[in-house]
């Protein structure tokens, strides 16, 4: 379970400028299996997602994941919560898919033979086995995002947070990634502009100007977001 308790995030203003509030007094209790977070650019939804695994810490308030505070138990939280970024180039840090998956598995302290076997298994599961040895530079955007997902899921997180994972993908790869996310057993928090994906969620949070302005089932949440955007 993910709990936000009176969470605010404020960024210091540059050069004497006033501080900039990003999120303001957010209270949430997230238990659903699929949660979509929608909102305009700059609304604070990515910050909300990053709070879940401690990439961003609250300026005030607490974020608690299965009893662990992201501020004081950051490492333990990150073992539970996987995070997928919008741009896979930011996430894939090793020269080949095989090496990148192996990097993820280092945290598990497996012996070499087991690590190698797991890497092969994961690459095959994600249909990347034939690309194991190629340079990541030669992968398509969709293949890179699939690799980024594979790298995160390799460590078997209990919760997966995805920050607009399909924004940079074409329709074919968007479908592949959507189907993969839908098939996962983990709790998934999906930040997205794709209202079709949001409509499949169990719960939709609409974020606007640093506040959760609507929170409910998918059809209602998506309609509220459409209504909000129509008046902008």
């Amino acid at each position, binding site marked *: 379970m993910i709990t936000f308790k009176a969470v605010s995030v404020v960024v210091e203003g540059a050069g004497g400028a006033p501080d900039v509030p990003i999120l303001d007094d957010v209270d949430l209790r997230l238990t659903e299996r699929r949660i979509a977070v929608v909102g305009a650019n700059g609304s604070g939804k990515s910050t909300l997602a990053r709070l879940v695994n401690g*990439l961003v810490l609250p300026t005030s308030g607490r974020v608690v994941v299965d009893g662990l505070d992201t501020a004081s138990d950051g490492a333990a939280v*990150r073992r539970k919560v*996987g995070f997928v*970024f919008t741009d896979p180039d930011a996430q894939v840090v*090793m020269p080949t898919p095989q*090496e990148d998956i192996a*990097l993820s598995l280092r945290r598990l302290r497996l012996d070499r033979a087991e690590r190698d076997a797991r890497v092969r298994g994961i690459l095959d599961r994600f249909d990347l086995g034939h690309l194991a040895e190629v340079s990541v*530079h030669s992968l398509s955007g969709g293949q890179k995002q699939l690799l980024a997902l594979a790298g995160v899921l390799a460590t078997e997180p209990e919760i997966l947070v995805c920050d607009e994972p399909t924004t940079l993908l074409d329709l074919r790869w968007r479908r592949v990634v959507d189907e993969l996310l839908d098939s996962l057993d983990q709790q998934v928090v999906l930040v997205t502009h794709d209202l079709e994906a949001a409509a499949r969620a169990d719960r939709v949070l609409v974020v606007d100007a640093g506040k959760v302005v609507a929170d409910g089932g998918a059809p209602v949440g998506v309609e509220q977001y459409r209504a909000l955007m129509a008046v902008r």
Partner: protein
Amino acid sequence: MSAAGVRRRRSRRPWTGPLGLYVHGTTPLHRAPVDVKLGALALLGVAVIVLRGPATAAVLLAIATVAAVVARVPARATVRGLLPVLVTAGVLGAYQWWQRGPAVAVEVGADLVSLVLAAGVVTATTPADRMLDVLERSLRPLRHIGVRPDVVALAVALMLRTIPALVQTVAEVRDAARARGLERDPRALLVPAAVRTVARARATGDALAARGLGD
């Protein structure tokens, strides 16, 4: 226009720097233990310093070249990666020729190329994961003085990965400047390249933190 008249430009793989990237293979050098390869590289480094004379330097260069051939490292990519080193060796060699004569010039140039080529062979035949294992193991004694071997090993592996990423960033910025007709303005290249490099470093840090690496 006839097909023969059409000039085609093949897109090339991004420049990966003189140390290159891992190249999959099953050669004896790919199968050799990483400790042995790093030990041999260290030995070559010592030999380059201790043994003097152009003939010895030529022999060491020949050994590094044979290693590259045995490892079946792609010739074109290797030469491309070594280009800045070859230019540096040429400039240093010319200076030494002028100052101390042709023997020293050959020795300095050949030694530099031998070392970088041999290091490139090690990175080309060793997956980053194996390199991390060895680095982590060899740095273990430093734990007693508060150094975390896993973090240092990761930093070294990332440094190797960063070279092609930086080249890619510069190429993107150059294209952006060209698209605005600013290809002759150094500020249009240097400032955005620096900003993007810092942004990329931050993104990589976030990516590692998100995977729980370095915690």
